[in-house]
């Protein structure tokens, strides 16, 4: 399977076989990501890291991944210090970054920005989140986390909870989980339900997701509970936000109804949707999930930049 110079814009650009290949290769990256083993397979390679929007985990884990592989990173985390401020188009910024590096990672507030970037770059482009659009590396690290903990994805009962309407991670994740044969249940406030087009995509893979409002009932036989933050910035009306924000909360009481080996995931940042008390329980996997961003991004960078296989 050849990934050299491939763009990573949407999880939908990858077949089931390709996703499984990346996830398998990610396993090999874990000891390197932890610093237990060392490599410099991307020595002399430069990654251009263009973050037009704030990010903690994604940016740091991309940088860590590139450094762990012996490569170097240039770029910015604040567009106010760049020519964008002077009115430069994204296309021109990409042309420049392309000439300075071997690959480009981009986070941008506008949907489609990463796809557009591929038209102005000869180097491969990796999408680190485009507005409410795609975030394929988050999706891959979520899949990797589930596989690591549950051995496989097929047949697992996975509950997606929270903002299923605007949350960019849950749309790609619902698609990928359906492709890989998981059973899906959606729990959200009425105004933040999973869009019909995402449900239809799940159905195309033979998955019939169920939508319920009772979280206790959903958690009862779940293998994975994937929680998302209700994003204040998406609400035009503060009153509506206040009405839905506390509607669902994952706490110790709720977990009394859960299976012993349930895992709780969250793309982070978390606000109020998971009680900090849950962090100490064996259910909480979100910090380990955040670490998995490093080996997943190492695997992708290595495959795309043609690093020697580990």
């Amino acid at each position: 399977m050849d990934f050299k110079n491939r763009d990573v814009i949407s999880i939908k650009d990858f077949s089931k076989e390709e996703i499984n290949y990346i996830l398998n290769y990610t396993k090999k990256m874990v000891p390197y990501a932890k610093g237990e083993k060392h490599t410099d397979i991307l020595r002399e390679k430069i990654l251009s890291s263009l973050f037009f929007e704030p990010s903690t985990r994604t940016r740091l884990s991309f940088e860590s991944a590139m450094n762990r592989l012996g490569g170097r990173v240039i770029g910015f985390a604040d567009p106010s210090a760049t020519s964008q401020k002077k009115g430069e188009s994204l296309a021109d910024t990409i042309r420049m970054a392309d000439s300075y590096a071997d690959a480009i990672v981009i986070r941008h507030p506008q949907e489609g920005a990463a796809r557009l970037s591929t038209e102005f770059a000869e180097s491969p482009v990796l999408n680190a989140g485009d507005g409410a659009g795609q975030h394929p590396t988050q999706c891959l690290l979520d899949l990797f986390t589930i596989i690591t903990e549950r051995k496989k994805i097929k047949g697992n009962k996975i509950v997606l909870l929270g903002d299923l309407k605007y949350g960019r991670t849950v749309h790609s994740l619902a698609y990928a989980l359906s492709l890989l044969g998981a059973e899906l249940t959606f729990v959200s406030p009425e105004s933040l339900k999973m869009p019909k087009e995402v449900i239809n995509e799940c159905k195309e893979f033979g998955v019939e997701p169920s939508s319920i409002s009772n979280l206790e009932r959903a958690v009862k036989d779940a293998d994975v509970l994937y929680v998302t933050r209700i994003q204040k910035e998406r609400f035009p009306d503060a009153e509506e936000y206040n009405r839905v924000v506390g509607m669902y909360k994952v706490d110790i009481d709720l977990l009394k109804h859960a299976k012993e080996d349930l895992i709780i995931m969250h793309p982070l940042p978390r606000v109020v949707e998971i009680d900090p008390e849950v962090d100490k329980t064996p259910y909480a996997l979100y910090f380990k999930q955040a670490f998995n961003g490093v080996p997943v991004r190492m695997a992708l960078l290595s495959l795309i930049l043609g690093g020697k296989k580990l």
Partner: protein
Amino acid sequence: MKKLKITPIKNGTVIDHITPGFAVKVLHVLKIPESTSSVVSVAINVKSRIGKKDIVKVENRELDTKEVDKIALIAPKATINIIRDFEVVEKHKVQLPDEIVGIVKCSNPTCISNAKEPVKSRFLLVSDDPPSIKCYYCERETEDIAERII
């Protein structure tokens, strides 16, 4: 004797069965009159066996099929008739191309294709009838296509 509101043309193209009220938008999509100096006749709300329809006739010019197919975005039931010496020598239903470039504006205000970038809007066909298209950039399906024609 029954008199036709629009007389037959000797040579050219007749676009028939346009969704009533959409003839002007069809002209807009075909960039008429900018792209032609031919005589163009437009009939709106013409009675037909299956209700009303609009008709556009372009004289002395055989429109390029691919170009005309774009009108399927707003008039999926339209037919294209090529006329030579008063005879219909070619007839086909409009069919949307797999990719539609530079005709429709993405309905997502935060799509990068709506920013000041040097790209044309680009859509991929999801279904023919009713027409459904998805933005190549932001992957959202566009609603109210007729309202989004550039």
